[in-house]
């Protein structure tokens, strides 16, 4: 199809034609077009449907504020709903599809809502759909939900990658219009580190859209010259296609750079977008302004546009919205549009200027003091009805209507710290007010300085002032000649009338809705917004808020300043969720920690399990084993019968040194460590200050001034942080130093009757590890395999004769292979976390399942471990009334009767008696099948448990319809006297 509305000139590259489709139809455009300008050039006016009434919608703007021109862009997994055509850079083969219509954009059945609008006014749904009760979810809501939303997600995983980035600068300039370019140039020449961001793909802002020149050349050429100089400065970074979406505390700005949206798809490994965190010592907002429309009857027909946008399409993109264009304005700006249209050879049908003192025009008849009282046309504007100053009426044919209601400075980023804009009467607009983010200044149109000369001068002045605050001196250069017209505007918010006049075109909020909100006492601006949904659409009110509250001000008789505004929040423009996530998604959501024997375990075909940040071997399936239980049972039995080996490197290890190391541990642990002999290990219980158990583990004393603490895998980080708190904040007087040694060591548990025999194969002969020479709970620095430094701890989690042998992590892979080889004669069996879990339950050792943050030492039956002879964290608050209650919870063992199963998460009840919340006696924390005992066993907490060993209780799991009788017993199912440990 030929580009019927394409004009001569413009900033497009006619040597690079591009093809695209909209709703399946093929169109042509050029490099330098946006999808919007290409659609305009092709005479496409109808691009969408409104949210509620499904009214025909056309493009009204040429910028990121566009509320109507929303399409589904691309196809398949890359489909992007609600994409603004005005921000979509045209690329060859681009595919766009209209939204929220059925069956077609031209004929939309849902448009019946428009006929029912009298019954569908603001908040109608709050007043009905209540009867019959059940109908809301079954009937009404499904209907409402089906109508919800505009575009649709593909439902497929986003195939693109997104990067995050970090940049630092002295001055961040937001917006590369005349003010921003001038500011960046001033700061750049002064040698400051400058970052200049602009959401457009071409720098220049309004200069690209206006016809007037700067310094004797066209605005676009002046911009190009400035850009060239900025690019030559090493201390200046230009970031096109980059939107400052949010201002956060202390000069942190979020900037979204679209690196892959102007092409069909990013290259492999390259990001679609980058979310930059820009640390700016100072920032300068040069975001320009957004033109307002005016409320009048049927002001939402396709073809009705911002007058400035019409200029933009004509001047920058060489595209006119129609052959005959009328202009409706309350300020001088509309006349510029008329002039530029005429200069481009487009017929200006009429200039309707609401001001009685409207200026004359060379290019068209001016109806001074007149207003547009209505429009007509099917799926787009065909004519305007004019109410003349004298009261007469006139009917003018046109294919487009350019409307200017004045300009709103883009103050949004100044409100991101909940700042409130201030009303400025002479320009009839809000300008930055109280609460602008510290470090930010505003220049140019964004603070109501509208003339080109004014913005260029203001940009320079504000840049100099901002840099001065951080001790950088910048010089003022002579400014180029440019237009310097004053703002001449007489406010007109809406043309009174019976028919609906639109304010928020996406959400279908009309003047009538504002009146209804006022009538029902939703008069506070926030109530107005929330009741009518004014300003809750994709543009977040950029095209509608001021109109709406101006009308509310009229109704309440308050001034606009008193009426105030709602809050602008980040992001400035809609931002893909994926961009905030960057690379930390999927498997890379968080880093994965691998054990030193990981690669070996993978070779063995181990099944792995996530244990916090770690990936650990869960079990090692063997040929012919069809169910995980077979593998786990085998691993347990082999360990208890002969010897097993397990990588326990994940346990936290903290090196504690200093003359006060023992005293330090006495404070951190509830039991005593200063008395521990060198070469010995002791179990330690660590409480939070509130008396609950924080962590437990064994701590070894390697020297007079040297301890090594072991923490649980899960708490390694938080325990280290806590110890640093004790060291730095509570006892800075103590001589103690901490360092994490978790990653330094590859540590293996070697457990079972033959554990010593295996180790003797590897431990260098000079070290005596016999039962006498190295008894239970002994520890020491030794060497293995001819002098490799190692640490040996005789501790046992399994309840068997066991050691933990640690070698430098680099030898971990080699060490596990050596252990397997040395243990072969005894059939050494590697075991994973499942078997580890079974054996610790059999032995009654607690883990995270038991230590759930509400458990005291007393609950664990370890009350005596909380020394009363010394100060230790948690000891005092552990003595509170409820925590020492006689009928408190007690850790017990649980054994299923008659082949039943103990299930973790079951609640415990007396065997006879009611089963309801009031009679809940406790719960099961851990459960496993014990191949050793040949029954399902578990650990749990039950009231008065210590006194109830032998009693049978009911373990109830109604969630899964299960119930079992279990016998309470000691948590030590295995070797309660600990003979195996000491063997």
């Amino acid at each position, binding site marked *: 199809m030929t580009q019927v509305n394409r004009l001569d000139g413009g900033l497009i590259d006619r040597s690079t034609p591009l093809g695209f489709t909209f709703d399946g139809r093929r169109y042509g455009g050029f490099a330098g077009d946006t999808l919007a300008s290409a659609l305009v050039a092709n005479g496409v006016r109808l691009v969408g449907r409104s949210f509620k009434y499904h009214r025909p919608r056309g493009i009204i703007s040429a910028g990121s504020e566009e509320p109507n021109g929303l399409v589904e862009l691309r196809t398949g997994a890359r489909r992007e709903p609600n994409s603004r055509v005005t921000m979509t850079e045209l690329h060859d083969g681009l595919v766009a599809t209209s939204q929220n219509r059925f069956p077609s954009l031209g004929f939309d059945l849902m448009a019946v809502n428009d006929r029912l609008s009298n019954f569908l006014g603001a908040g109608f749904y709050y007043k009905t759909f209540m009867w019959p009760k059940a109908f809301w979810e079954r009937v009404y809501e499904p209907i409402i939900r089906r109508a919800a939303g505009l575009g649709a997600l593909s439902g497929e995983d986003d195939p693109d*990658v997104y*990067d*995050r*980035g*970090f*940049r*630092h600068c002295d001055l961040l300039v937001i917006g590369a219009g005349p003010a921003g370019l001038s500011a960046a140039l001033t700061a750049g020449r002064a040698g400051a580190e400058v970052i200049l961001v602009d959401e457009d793909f071409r720098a220049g802002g309004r200069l690209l859209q206006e016809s007037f020149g700067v310094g004797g050349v066209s605005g676009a050429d002046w911009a190009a010259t400035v850009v060239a100089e900025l690019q030559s400065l090493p201390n200046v970074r230009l970031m096109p296609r980059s939107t400052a979406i949010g201002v956060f505390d202390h000069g942190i700005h979020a900037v979204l750079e679209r690196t892959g949206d102007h092409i069909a798809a990013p290259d492999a*490994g*390259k*990001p679609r977008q980058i979310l930059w*965190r820009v*640390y700016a010592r100072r920032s300068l907002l040069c975001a320009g302004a957004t033109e307002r429309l005016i409320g009048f009857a049927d002001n939402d027909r396709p073809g009705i546009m911002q007058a400035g946008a019409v200029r933009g399409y004509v001047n920058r993109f060489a595209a006119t919205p129609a052959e005959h264009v009328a202009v409706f304005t309350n300020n001088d700006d509309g006349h510029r549009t008329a002039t530029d249209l005429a200069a481009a050879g487009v017929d200006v049908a009429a200039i309707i200027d609401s001001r009685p003192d409207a200026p004359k025009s060379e290019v068209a008849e001016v109806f001074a003091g007149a207003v547009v009282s209505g429009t007509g046309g099917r799926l787009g504007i065909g004519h305007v009805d004019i109410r003349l100053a004298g009261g007469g009426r006139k009917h003018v044919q046109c294919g487009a209507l350019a409307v200017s209601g004045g300009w709103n400075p883009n103050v949004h980023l100044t409100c991101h710290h909940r700042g409130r804009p201030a009303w400025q009467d002479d320009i009839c607009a809000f300008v930055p007010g109280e609460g602008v983010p510290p470090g930010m200044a505003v220049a140019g149109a964004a603070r109501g300085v509208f003339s080109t000369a004014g913005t260029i001068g203001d940009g320079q002045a504000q840049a100099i002032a901002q840099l001065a605050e951080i001790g950088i001196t910048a010089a003022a250069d002579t400014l180029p000649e440019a237009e310097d017209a004053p703002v001449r505007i007489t406010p007109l918010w809406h043309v009174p009338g019976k028919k609906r006049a639109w304010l928020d075109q996406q959400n279908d909020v009309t003047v009538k809705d504002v009146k209804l909100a006022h009538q029902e006492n939703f008069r506070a601006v926030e109530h107005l917004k929330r009741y009518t949904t004014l300003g809750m659409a994709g543009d977040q009110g950029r095209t509608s808020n001021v109109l709406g509250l101006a009308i509310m001000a009229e109704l309440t008789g308050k001034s606009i300043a008193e009426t105030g505004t709602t809050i602008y929040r980040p992001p400035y423009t809609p931002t893909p969720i994926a961009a905030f996530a960057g*690379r*930390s998604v999927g498997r*890379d959501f*968080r*880093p*994965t*920690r*691998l*054990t030193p024997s990981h*690669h070996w375990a993978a070779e063995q075909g181990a099944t792995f399990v996530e244990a916090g*940040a*770690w990936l650990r071997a869960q079990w090692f399936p063997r040929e012919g084993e069809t169910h995980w239980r077979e593998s786990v049972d085998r691993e347990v039995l082999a360990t208890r019968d002969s010897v097993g080996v397990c990588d326990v*490197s994940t346990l936290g290890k903290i*090196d504690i*040194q*200093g*003359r*006060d190391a023992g005293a330090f541990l006495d404070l951190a642990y509830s039991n005593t460590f200063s008395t521990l002999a060198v070469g010995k290990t002791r179990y330690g219980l660590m409480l939070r200050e509130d008396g609950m158990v924080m962590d437990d583990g064994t701590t070894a004393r390697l020297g007079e*001034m040297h301890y090594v603490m072991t923490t649980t895998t899960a708490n390694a980080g938080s325990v280290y942080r806590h110890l640093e708190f004790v060291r730095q904040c509570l006892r800075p007087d103590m*001589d*103690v*130093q901490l*360092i*994490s*040694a*978790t*990653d*330094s*060591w590859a540590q293996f548990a070697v457990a079972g009757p033959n554990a010593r025999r295996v180790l003797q*194969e*590897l431990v*260098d002969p000079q070290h005596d590890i016999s039962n006498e020479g190295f008894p239970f709970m002994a520890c020491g620095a030794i060497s*293995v*395999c*001819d002098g*490799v430094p190692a640490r040996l701890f005789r501790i046992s989690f399994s309840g068997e004769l066991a050691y933990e042998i640690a*070698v*430098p*992590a*680099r*030898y*971990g*892979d*080699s*060490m596990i292979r*050596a252990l397997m*080889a*040395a243990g072969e004669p005894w059939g050494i069996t590697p075991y994973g976390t499942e078997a580890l879990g079974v054996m610790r339950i059999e032995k009654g050792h607690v883990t995270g399942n038991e230590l759930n943050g509400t458990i005291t030492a007393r609950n664990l039956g370890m009350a005596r471990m909380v020394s009363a002879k010394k100060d230790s964290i948690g000891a005092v608050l552990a003595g509170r009334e409820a925590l020492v209650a006689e009928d408190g919870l007690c850790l017990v063992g649980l054994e299923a009767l008659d082949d039943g199963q103990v299930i973790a998460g079951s609640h415990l009840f007396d065997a006879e008696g009611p089963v309801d919340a009031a009679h809940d006696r406790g719960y099961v924390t851990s459960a496993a099948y014990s191949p050793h005992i040949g029954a399902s066993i578990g650990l749990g907490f039950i009231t008065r448990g210590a006194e109830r060993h032998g009693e049978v209780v009911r373990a109830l799991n109604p969630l899964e319809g299960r119930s079992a009788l279990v016998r309470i017993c000691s948590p030590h199912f295995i070797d309660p006297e600990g003979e195996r440990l000491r063997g």
Partner: protein
Amino acid sequence: MASLTPTTALGGTIPFDETIGGNRIREVSDAAMASLAMLKGQGAAFKKAAASRLGELPAPGHAVGHAAGHGGCANHASTIWMGPDQYLVEGIDAATLAATFGASAAITDQSDAWVRFDVTGGDVVAMLERLSGADTRRMQAGSATRTAIHHMHCVIVCRAGGTDFTILGPRSSAASLHHALVAAAASL
């Protein structure tokens, strides 16, 4: 008796070494590292020992080359500031340090605590910009900072401004850190 052979943090026998675009990413697995922390009230003895073995101690946020005859820390044998009274010493084993410092310091071997990647090339800063909030653009030889890379606690040491950096990360997270570096280099 069996003899043990070391592997690199990434699990290989030869260190990873690849050039992606303008950047070279090289795993360094053979450097001795030890943490050195001054004990309370030992200031004088500690500083004396430090002077004899290390020379000048780095100020916060810095690393200082300690091997005689080489300037700065470009020779990868430097003392890195880690925290108040805490340092990480490259290129000297813990036993030697212990002998030097005696009871004036707490010394712990850290040779196996870290994975170390040296990243060099013209686009290194552009690559680090995608990984860390540290102002690597302004880092000069001898700047060193502990910071986060993709939720991992890392140390970034600048060997030569703009072109030559060392990144230390937790050894157990070597694969994740490596993946992050390679992805960043490839995304430029």
